[in-house]
């Protein structure tokens, strides 16, 4: 995959699926604040890459990224990390207040810090400075919930359910639901590494949606599976959303965001560049992405700063 594809892998209207978007646009009834984000900064340590090399030329290629060689590990252990560690400032000073009843979409090109922001406001990545304040328990719904591939689906449902904070009794009760929703049948008794990628994504989504949180965070969850599964997961999200009160949605598909969100945050290079009603923000965002595509296709010049590229490298472990 070339870099231009990586940077601008954004669905505009191409993947528009009308059946996803039936019904009127959501209307927010604003309540009390449930989430306050105050000057949030997230800094990753990245081992094995010098900041200078990452930031230096605009055309640093992936292949030249320094590997974490034995020598380098030795060097960094003696010189207390000088030289082999760089820091990536993924989220830089974002502040906003979310209220009960809002559905908030987060948009931005790849590597802009959307997923990091979402994980940070869920409390999964500790902030470097600033703070996140919430009412109740937020939970991340997604297909990224890493489970144990060498174990059976059955074991993974147990581990995932318990990790979400369910009691063993609750896991027992919801077990059949999860299996049925994931539609994996008897495969549930086989190790997850034998699953097709669609099956394992479905199972992970099913597990992560087993609990109903107060604040729901969705990370690209709708991007998985076939049309039938998409419809079912949309129904499940709607159901959870009714109980959840507040949702956050990260998606590359602007049409999904349009259908589900009342407010959109546009994140670029770790900063909040626009925050407002869905229609208004998406209009500007689409213009921006289209202009970028044209610029890319006419001249393959680097429009995205070196920060975004180093971010992609660090995100590979996700």
């Amino acid at each position: 995959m070339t870099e231009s594809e990586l940077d601008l892998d954004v669905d505009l209207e191409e993947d528009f699926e009308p059946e996803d978007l039936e019904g009127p646009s959501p209307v927010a009834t604003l309540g009390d604040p449930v989430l306050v984000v105050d000057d949030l900064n997230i800094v990753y340590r990245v081992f094995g890459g010098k900041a200078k090399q990452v930031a230096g030329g605009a055309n640093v290629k992936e292949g030249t990224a320094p590997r974490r060689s034995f020598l380098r590990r030795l060097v960094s252990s003696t010189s207390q990390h000088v030289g082999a560690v760089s820091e990536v400032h993924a989220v830089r000073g974002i502040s906003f207040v979310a209220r009960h009843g809002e559905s908030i979409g987060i948009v931005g090109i790849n590597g802009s810090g959307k997923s990091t922001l979402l994980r940070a406001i869920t409390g999964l990545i500790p902030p470097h400075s600033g703070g996140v304040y919430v009412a109740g328990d937020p939970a991340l719904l997604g297909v990224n919930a890493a489970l144990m591939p060498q174990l059976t689906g059955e074991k993974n449902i147990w581990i995932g359910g318990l990790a979400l904070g369910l009691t063993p009794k609750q896991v027992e009760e919801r077990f059949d639901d999860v299996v049925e929703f994931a539609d994996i049948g008897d495969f549930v008794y086989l190790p997850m590494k034998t699953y097709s990628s669609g099956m394992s994504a479905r199972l992970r989504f099913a597990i992560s949606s087993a609990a109903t949180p107060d604040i729901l965070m969705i990370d690209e969850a709708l991007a998985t599976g076939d049309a039938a599964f998409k419809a079912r997961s949309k129904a499940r999200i709607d159901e959870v959303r009714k109980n959840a009160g507040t949702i956050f949605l990260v998606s590359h598909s602007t049409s999904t965001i349009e259908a589900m969100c009342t407010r959109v945050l546009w994140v670029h290079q770790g900063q909040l560049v626009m925050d407002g009603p869905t229609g208004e923000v998406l209009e500007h965002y689409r213009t921006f992405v289209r202009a970028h595509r044209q610029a890319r296709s006419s001249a393959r010049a680097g429009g995205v700063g070196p920060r975004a590229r180093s971010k992609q490298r660090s995100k590979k472990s996700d």
Partner: protein
Amino acid sequence: MTTDTARGAPSGDRGTPGAKDDLLRPPEPIVPDTTSQERLALATQFDLRQMGVRPPLKDYVRDVVSRWPFIRTLGTSTAYAKNQNNYLGQLWAVLNPTLNAIVYILIFGILLGTTRGLENAIAFIVIGTFLFRFVEQSVHAGSRSIAQKTNLIRSMHFPRAVLPTAQVVSLLATLVPALLVMCVIVLLSGLLPAYPMIPIRWSWLLLPAIVALLWIFNTGVAFMVARAVAITPDLDNVIGFIMRLVMYGSGVIFPVTHYVDRLPDAVQGIVGAILEYQPIGVFLYVARSILTQEPEIPQDPWMWLWAALWAIVAFVVGFIVFWRGEERYGRD
């Protein structure tokens, strides 16, 4: 600010950019319409809880305890997963430590004869290697418990102390069948003509007690290394060497205290005391004293006291050390 070089040029009206160049730039970062104080006041007013910060120790302990079903499931599943990729499967949980013990018996017990002066070298080495393996693997598992589960940490909320605890539980799960084999080997070794008979005595019932103390001790140590390696991954490289030093210094495969009198007189006293009362030495002493009838290793209540002391100190200190780093796990 770290590596940023690309900054958007100032654009007055972000809504209607005129030139084509302006289209390529996102709007300037917005300035929030509330100040930090106002937002914090809002957070306090509506009684919001701060995320990503370390909870008070009391709440943390309660949270970890309430996750016991999770710890148990994760631990036993990990133990099972470890040995399922080969034909003999779970049998390896027993075969591995046995083969390990045989190697040391052949080299140190028979070839080098370092166990001279002991009545039953096989029992001595088998008990040493089986139990030390538990300690060594706990340290290694603890050191990897955070780094290997970064994805889990970044996907779900739970007190991170669950991870090292579950790792040690998983090792305990594989240790239990191995201990049975260990007891059988010790008994059988008494049937060899060169060694005296080893009868099963009432004191054998104390084995679960010392294993439980060792489990508590290992969990504490796993907490400590888990935090150290999570913050400074380089330490992972050093741990192997430290554990080897500990192995040879604890009398796992030969009575190390026999060699103390070869040292200069000035250091003999202090080195002897360290070797005798350091935790691994204490645990092995107690285990050997209850299983064998070695004249050199009589049962000693004081050693039990030392073992209990080490277990509690390691666990309490380890837990607090780990808890103090709670808000940092998962950022790297």
